[in-house]
């Protein structure tokens, strides 16, 4: 039996925001381990620290204390530029509001991400891009700008964008939160396929039990802690 490789691990992760003079404990010692190829859902009520944790896992926030190991590298000890570098190499984000560049076409959005991920090195991503676009059923929509696409299509473009450059982990922040049930189903099914077909590690925040139901593991959070 193959031993699964740990791709992400948090150790006693704490985050304290200072709001005026009042310290707010957003995370109170989170310990989480995610293996390579896992599809994990993080659930919990609003304000329980899910988004804070996702931002820390993606290197966009520095934790107050504790460690975050991504593929063996400790994010919490890194400088801002090193965290940016790690995010560029290993993290793909999918947002609730899609966050596509409105002035660029679907293809432009994807190629921009490729350019950032390549960091000046010319990489031929054509084959992988074609495969992803086929899987996400976007081949016929590449020349359209975001406002010409449906919500489901926009989110699929955002997923394609997150996948360029082979990120080790995709962090999805309520990816179906802005979609109707039909489009939600399509997007969830595609995330599931990406996980199965490419072995893509996905950590998804969701309020929807239905969305969480397609993942391999559900992590419940409450008051800045993992409760289950």
């Amino acid at each position, binding site marked *: 039996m193959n031993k699964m490789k740990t791709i992400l691990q948090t150790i006693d992760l704490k985050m304290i925001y200072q709001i005026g003079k009042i310290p707010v404990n957003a995370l109170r010692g989170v310990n989480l381990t995610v293996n390579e190829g896992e599809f994990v859902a993080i659930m919990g009520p609003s304000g329980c620290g899910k988004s804070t944790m996702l*931002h820390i896992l*993606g290197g*966009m*926030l520095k934790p107050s204390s504790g460690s975050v190991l991504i593929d063996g590298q400790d994010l919490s000890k890194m400088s801002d*530029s090193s965290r*940016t*570098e790690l*995010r*560029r*190499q290993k*993290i793909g*984000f999918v*947002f609730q509001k899609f*966050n596509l*560049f*409105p*002035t*660029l*076409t679907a*293809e*432009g*959005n*994807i*190629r*921009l*991400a*490729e*350019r*950032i*991920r390549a*960091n000046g090195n010319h990489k031929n991503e054509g084959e992988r891009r074609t495969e992803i676009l086929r899987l996400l059923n976007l081949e016929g929509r590449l020349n359209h700008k975001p406002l010409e696409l449906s919500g489901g299509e926009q989110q699929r473009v955002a997923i394609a*964008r997150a996948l360029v450059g082979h990120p080790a982990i995709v962090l999805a922040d309520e990816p179906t939160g802005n979609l109707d049930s039909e489009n939600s189903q399509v997007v969830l099914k595609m995330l599931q396929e990406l996980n199965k077909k490419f072995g893509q590690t996905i950590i998804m925040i969701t309020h929807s039990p239905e969305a969480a139901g397609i993942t391999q593991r559900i992590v419940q959070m409450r008051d800045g802690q993992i409760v289950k």
Partner: protein
Amino acid sequence: MDSLVMANLSQRPVRTIISAVGVALGIVLVILMVGLSHGMLQEQGRRNSNVGAEILFTRPNNYGPGTSSVLSLPVQYAPEISKVSGVQAVSPIGQYLKPSNQSFGMEMVEGVDIESYQKVTNLSISEGKNLTTDDEVIIDPVYSRDKKVKVGDSIDLFGHKFYVSGIYQPEIGARMKIKLSMMQNLLGSKDRCSFVFVKCKPKYSQEQVAENILTALPDNKVLFTREIQELYEKGLPVVNVFVKAVVVVSIIISVLVIMLAMYTTIIERTREIGVLKSLGASKQFIVFEIEKEALLISVLGTLLGYLVAITGRWLIIKNTSLIIELEPKWLFYAALVGILSGLLGALYPALRVANQDPVKALSYE
């Protein structure tokens, strides 16, 4: 196409055009103002160096003909100079720079003692007759052609009506000449002039005569008319200060326009900057993208500025008495001013946004 820069420029055409116009304004200012000051000076220098007299005697703070509108030199210097060894003839000249009567711009008028003036210069009357009365003015052929003025017509100078008595040749000094005594009366500068032209006797070197003059009349200044054009081409100190001021004002305008344009557009795109950061874009990448946008706007503004400046120059020359030099060196400097100002103006917004917290940027509505 993944070019955010091109997409942003084409998606916000009004902002792009306004920013480019702002840069163009600086370019036009540099090209026209510098061209105008140099053009007028060089033309003035050429006309004054053709005068025939070899030496110009003036006060120490006067840089040459055409640089002062004040009759500051007592006419009594002229007979004193005429006694100096090696001096053949002298002629006191009054020069006054006034706003043009018929168009935008300035015009130079000279007050001359016509008899002594013709002894030190090679001026001759080609049409009509010489200056004889106080109400007469003689003009050169260029003035006659450009202003469509002919012998017998009247010209209003200093609120007084003058009649054109004749047209003189060659083009030397100011294009309009009246009697020095009349100019002194009208300006309230009795017995004063701007400078004195000195003609040297044959066999005397100009340098020797100049030295003799300064020995006889120390604490004054002599210029060789052969050097006047070069002096004007180098630029007079006051004009050089003006040119520098124009360049600085142009830089400030371009920097502010680009800074404002980039700042507002970046505030609009705060969320997009957050997305770029989430994709792993480094600070350098973000600064570079914004600078590329500023560079393109600056290049666009520079080209627009060239177009407006060249068209403007053509219109100004056609409709006024102004002369504007289009110097390749200053075309290059103007482009440099536009482009560097654009890059500089975008730098602060770029650095500010590149250092922004990505989580805050992503939550920007």
